[in-house]
């Protein structure tokens, strides 16, 4: 396939689309990571839950997109809420490794819960005609959904950044993510803020499930795992403990993934996940706290 300018632009757009998904996921994971030093592996599964709930809602509650979207967001938030109360809260103060292992267990639980209650098979997602309209920009074909995804990615990220600077609870989330001890000293109800952060992040993750389904047309119960891991890579690259950094990292990973897949010979197509990890290793070796990150001990 010849590499034309159009081709590169299409790959860039795809990169921005996927980057938006990673950025939104990274946002959610970053705050929780800062607070609890926990990589919430289960975060990826919330995406999957969001996608399936949207599908179910559309099929069963009358094909009204807004209602289905609300159901998606609620479902996402609920998963986050239950995760915190049932699992993570009971491990407060335990060593990092315990949290890590538990979040892995939570991921497997959620993925298989969906498998058992819904289906194990990949499912075609709903086609929403409005989002599939193609249009032509200087000879490049773009779908409406691409624009919608990129815009919502930027919009939600921006909203979150503003929220963390202006709203009292937002500032509390930011402060707690930076230093949980100091936050409790100034009177922040840390338990409640943690729940808030998890729920917010999960709501956003649920939304990205909807976005993913619409963009890629197919969902399956296992889709969440690699997403969660890549979101963590995005945090590492963009900057641990930095909300804008998480967003930046998401877009960088997305672009890197699509551009390398697009520009390398097709035989390397299967390595797209590997490329992301390659970036992780480089980042960890060269600049462990990320581009915009706050210094924390990554090395022992």
């Amino acid at each position, binding site marked *: 396939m010849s590499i034309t300018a159009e081709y590169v632009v299409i790959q860039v757009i795809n990169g921005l689309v996927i980057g938006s998904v990673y950025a939104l996921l990274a946002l959610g994971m970053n705050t929780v990571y800062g607070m609890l030093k926990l990589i919430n592996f289960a975060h990826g599964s919330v995406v999957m839950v969001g996608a399936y709930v949207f599908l179910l809602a559309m099929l069963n509650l009358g094909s009204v997109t807004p209602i289905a979207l609300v159901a998606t967001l609620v479902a996402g938030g609920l998963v986050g809420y239950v995760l915190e109360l049932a699992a993570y809260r009971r491990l407060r103060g335990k060593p990092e490794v315990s949290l890590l292992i538990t979040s892995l267990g939570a991921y497997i639980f959620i993925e298989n819960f969906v498998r058992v209650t819904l289906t194990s098979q990949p499912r075609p997602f709903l086609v929403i005609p409005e989002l599939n309209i193609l249009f032509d920009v200087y000879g490049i074909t773009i779908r409406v959904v691409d624009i919608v995804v990129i815009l919502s990615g930027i919009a939600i990220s921006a909203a979150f950044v503003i929220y963390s600077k202006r709203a*009292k609870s937002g*500032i*509390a989330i*930011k*402060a707690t993510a*930076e*230093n949980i*001890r*100091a*936050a*409790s*000293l*100034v*009177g*922040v*109800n*840390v*338990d409640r803020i943690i729940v808030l952060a998890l729920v917010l992040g999960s709501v956003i993750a649920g939304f990205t499930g909807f976005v993913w389904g619409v963009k890629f047309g197919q969902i399956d119960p296992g889709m969440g795992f690699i997403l969660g891991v890549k979101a963590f890579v995005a945090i590492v690259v963009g900057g641990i*403990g*930095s909300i804008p950094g998480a967003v930046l990292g998401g877009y960088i990973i997305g672009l890197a993934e699509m551009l390398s897949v697009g520009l390398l010979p097709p035989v390397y197509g299967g390595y797209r996940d590997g490329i992301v990890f390659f970036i992780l290793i480089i980042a960890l070796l060269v600049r462990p706290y990320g581009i915009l990150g*706050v210094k924390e001990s990554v090395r022992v």
Partner: protein
Amino acid sequence: MTLLRLEKVNVSYDALHVLRDVSLEIEKGTIVALIGLNGAGKTTTLKTIMGALRPTSGRILLEDDDIAQLPSHRRVEKGISLVPEGRELFYTLTVKENLLLGAYARRGDVEQGLRRVHELFPILKERQNQHAGTLSGGEQQMLAVGRGLMSDPKLLMLDELSLGLAPSVVDRLYETVSQINSQGVTILLVEQHVDLALKVADFAYGLEMGEVTFRRRSQDLLKDETIKKAYLG
């Protein structure tokens, strides 16, 4: 009138029994110092009063209210504030944001609180939009104290104010502490430099291996030769 009373408080870290039957009484409006060697349990005491640690037995009474089982944020609401050892600022936030966070549980007017802090530490007003991480050591300590004041506390606790600071900076800080006290805030402080502590405090409790060994007026302590030898070298 007693503001804070500890009655036979016992605290353990894992298997280590660090506070043994500690009983303290802090009168309203006074400045009280906790002195003792490293590891005696001074910071532990402050943390226990703040709620970062829970006692295994004993009572902690704030104006006759037993707060021993309350979580930290509720104690801030009730009027206790801790300026921790090492400051623990939010370094990625600005000076103003740090102060505003200090008022998270404030029982009164935030603007008024800001004005008060700016009066005591004018430099904080000057640098209000700078990130806390860019301040000098002395300024960071001022910010930490200012943040502690923002919740309009009845009791302000200071842990090792002098850590890492030049003597002239420390002297001025303690002058401001006296000022804060004269505004009606009761102060409980832990300070390595016993001479500093005794200069500013009204009373001092001695802590040794988790036990209270004495309670004396600081002017009496300053005159006592044996104490002077033990703590002041």
